[in-house]
């Protein structure tokens, strides 16, 4: 092992592997990255593991089992800088939809013997269990952002990440507003930029997979979206989607549920 290289560890919690895969999908950069850092623990890519502590820990997935609560604490102790990677790790991910229902009922629906399972009633972000040094949102994360964060850390500077909404990215790429022009409900005004405004560029509304933009005017957006609904409850379901457990989206969905007759 090169003693001068910072060590990196990659971990998976409850997730689809898509964010780890985004690392392996850096076809043009991965061999250089493997030169610049010592990839010391990355089970999906290598059997070879080196013991911690590690300089950087990248954690994918949310906490959904009692064992994962213990595991994340151990990982935190072994990591100098811990990055929560992707919407599962930062907000709970799509599996956090169980937080709005009875997980036991879900278990009964899916499994013949729910008593064999060992799971928590909620799926929660990493920061609910340990101190997180940086959150990188996205379902999946944008690999350019991952590279930016790693390079920034290697050079001891602050990573340059967007602090504006998807709307600005639409303007930049010249996409005509789908909500204004076509009346398609779009979460872009309430979603943090990072994906490159892919959905509006594909002629559909944003579904918020990069999580909330913290300065969004949610009551105003809710009103505009509800006017554009193509089926009852569309706005509530948009908020309560991939990033549905993020506090701002949770609040917006709850506000709709508490005022509307629409119950589901």
């Amino acid at each position: 092992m090169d003693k001068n290289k910072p060590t990196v560890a990659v971990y998976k919690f409850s997730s689809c592997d898509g964010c780890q895969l985004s690392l392996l999908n850096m076809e043009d950069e991965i061999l250089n990255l493997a030169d610049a850092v010592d990839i010391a623990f990355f089970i999906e890519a290598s059997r070879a593991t080196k013991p911690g502590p590690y300089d950087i820990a990248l954690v994918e997935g949310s906490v959904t089992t009692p064992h994962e609560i213990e595991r994340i604490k151990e990982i935190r102790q072994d990591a100098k800088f811990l990055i929560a990677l992707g919407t599962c790790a930062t907000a709970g991910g799509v599996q956090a939809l169980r937080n709005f229902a009875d997980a036991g009922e879900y278990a009964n629906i899916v499994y013949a013997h729910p008593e064999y399972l060992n799971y928590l009633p909620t799926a929660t972000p990493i920061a609910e269990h340990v101190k997180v040094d940086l959150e990188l949102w996205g379902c999946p994360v944008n690999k350019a952002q991952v590279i930016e964060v790693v390079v920034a850390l290697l050079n001891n500077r602050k990573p340059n990440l967007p602090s504006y909404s998807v709307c600005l990215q639409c303007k930049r790429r010249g996409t005509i507003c789908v909500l204004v022009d076509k009346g398609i409900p779009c979460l872009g005004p309430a979603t943090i930029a990072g994906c490159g405004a892919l959905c509006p560029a594909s002629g559909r509304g944003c579904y918020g997979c990069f999580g909330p933009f913290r300065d969004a005017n949610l009551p105003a957006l809710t009103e505009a979206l509800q006017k554009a609904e193509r089926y009852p409850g569309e706005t509530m379901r948009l908020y309560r989607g991939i990033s549905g457990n993020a506090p701002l989206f949770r609040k917006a969905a709850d506000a709709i549920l508490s005022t509307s007759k629409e119950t589901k």
Partner: protein
Amino acid sequence: MKTIEVPALARVEGEGGLYIGLENGKAVEIRLDIYEPPRFFEGFLHGRFLQEVPDITARICGICPVAYQMSSVFALENALGIKITPQVRALRRLMYCGEYIESHALHIYMLQAPDLLGKQSAFEVAAIAPDVVKNALRLKKIGNEILKTIGGRSVHPVNACVGGFYQWPDAEPLKALLHELEWGLQASIDCVKWALTLPYPDLEIEYESVALHHPDEYGIIEGEVWSSKGKKLSITDFEKGYIEEHVKHSNALHGRTIDGNTYLVGPIARLNLNHEQLLPNAQKALKDSKLKLPLKNPYKSLIARAVELVQAYEEAIQLVKNYKPEGPAHVELKLKAGEGAGATEAPRGLLYHRYQIDNHGLVTFAKITPPTAQNLPRIEADLFQLAPKIVKMPEAEATLTAEHLVRSYDPCISCATHFLKLKVEEKSK
């Protein structure tokens, strides 16, 4: 007591462990312990609007999101009784080519080949054979580029919907991929030749192969469910032939045939049943390989993947050349209550979905049978057959041989959870 323990199975998608119980040196119990946590997709799909389904099911697997989107949209279109246009069908096949390319190139070079080359990872392979890994990355990247061009990004692309696509992708950036695709076709033919030089462990299994079969094309998105035992079922009747059980040691359900047998899905099963439908270059690569079909050695699934890589490149070239974004990108949906099944061939095997929807288009029932759930009992059975050999090996070699077998299945554990600690235990002591 003889104990071999692997804390986690490396280079598979998801998490699990392997346990082998011995009595007087003979294997009496084999379990793949799946500790990948359950995520309850079929639960929280309830009450979602049908057009949200492909965005949600994509999140079952980061490596094969297109497969999950495709099985969903076909099932929901069947529930509504709508037919997609030939142009939409062609673009769906192209998307699937992109996914086969990225997933197979990843598995061949980065997940399985290190085992055959005595290395721990593709990074280690890169140190001894940099050109192999550079080519591998280029091969893989082209698949991701196809997905990006059609769907905005390769992991969880955003363009597929019930009825077709939200919008036709521009022809120009797709046609611009042709040069790389032509390179990829040649590189994948070379990949088959290279795959034949690798030292596969000996193992012969009499499999019941199960895959979609289509008379006019290599079965991926539509057709009948064929078994090498002669059983032919429509996709709608899939559950009449194949069922899932919940076993205690696994958060992934276990697939069985209705007669209680294990069966095999994935590249070996597809090649065994559908090799006659391969396109000419893939056909020739298979013939030149002198591979004897049916293929019975699970480790050689790498060669089957390489042949499918040729097929995917060859078909992608045709589809890109013929791509004409004409007519509506999606059929308008008329909502009504109904039920529909859909199945497509994910890179790792047959993926079946069934939904019921109400007259508002809301999901009232969802059933998803992933390929790895169907293969798990088969992997355990293979390990049983391998066990007499494993228990005589030194610990490190035993662990690697068993791990390699599991990895050769390209298991997608987060999809099937519904993985690996190798523990060999002498029970009688």
